[in-house]
């Protein structure tokens, strides 16, 4: 259970722009700590966005995505008041879902 995401979504001329800011360490597995021990990889590897219950975007991510990732995309359809729901799953099996309304 990670920290909350920040989700903003706005509909204009039949297109909804969804912006998501996620809170995640996104460790690559390449770094070492002060003692020289490898810091194990820990990153989001699956992300799903739904608009009004319908999956509109799905992605598989790897360790090359930055810490605290920011994702923005546009989808056809959607109107003010629609519910946006975003879920991520990381390689430790941890998951988090947050919701926001389209403005």
């Amino acid at each position: 259970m990670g920290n909350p995401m920040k989700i903003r979504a706005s509909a204009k001329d039949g297109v909804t722009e969804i912006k998501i800011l996620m809170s995640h360490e996104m460790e690559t597995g390449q770094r070492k700590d002060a003692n020289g021990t490898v810091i194990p990889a820990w990153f989001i590897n699956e992300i799903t966005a739904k608009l009004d219950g319908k999956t509109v975007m799905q992605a598989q991510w790897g360790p090359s995505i930055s810490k605290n990732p920011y994702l923005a995309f546009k989808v056809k359809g959607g109107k003010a008041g629609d519910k946006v729901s975003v879920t991520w799953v990381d390689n430790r099996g941890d998951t988090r879902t947050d919701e926001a309304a389209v403005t």
Partner: protein
Amino acid sequence: MVDRVSVGVAAFLAVSAVAATAYAQQKDAAQEGIEAYREALQDGNPAELYEATGEELWKTPAGPKKASLEQCDLGLGPGVVKGAYARLPRHFQDTDRVQDLESRLLTCMEALQGKDPKPYVEAAFTAPPKEEMIALAAYVSGQSKGDPIAVTPKHPKEQAMYDLGKRMFYYQGGPYDFSCATCHGQEGTRIRLQDLPYIPGTKGAAAGWGSWPAYRVSAGQMWSMQWRLNDCFRQQRFPEPVYTSDATIALSMFMAANASGETMKTPGIKR
């Protein structure tokens, strides 16, 4: 003969003028590229995540007295957060000290929550106690976003702090024979692609003071002003200042007063 020489000089001047213009255009193009990159970064500033954490810390009861920080007086009265950061540092009656945001937060944590400030002062900037301070600073500074910076040293202690800050800014020393002014005392300079703000001027001071605390993309870290200043000391190879010591508050006062009238853009985002 004389005519020919003057024609030659004129031609040379004309050629150098063209070269100078071309150089300026090239520089402008690079500058535009950097600005476009910075603008792209503004969208979805991860500092928002720290603001949310800070707000929670502000409102959640903690410490031996099981109190929140909601009654903390940041200079505009107990509990007023909106616009407070744009008016700091300032002199506080109760402590009879000039305080910046982070030293004031420590005062509130001690007085309201009964916490011992020592672990917060001594912890490394990446350690959990400092993470709390930085999140709180992110939250409070975010509540002054868009406000005009309004710091005018009036109280004798504020004026003394400003003068001390000015002296420190120009004080040259250490193994590199450096001062703050070595990097920030001339207009229009930069290190690699980073513009170096001219701190004695209003615009430059605001570019510095008005954009910290900030999220540093390359490091994936949120930095408070105290951390930023600490790093300036480190870069000059000066002894590192104690967290929230008068040395750091004096420099903050010098920057804030110089930046007065410009807009607060906190929390910022950096490369």
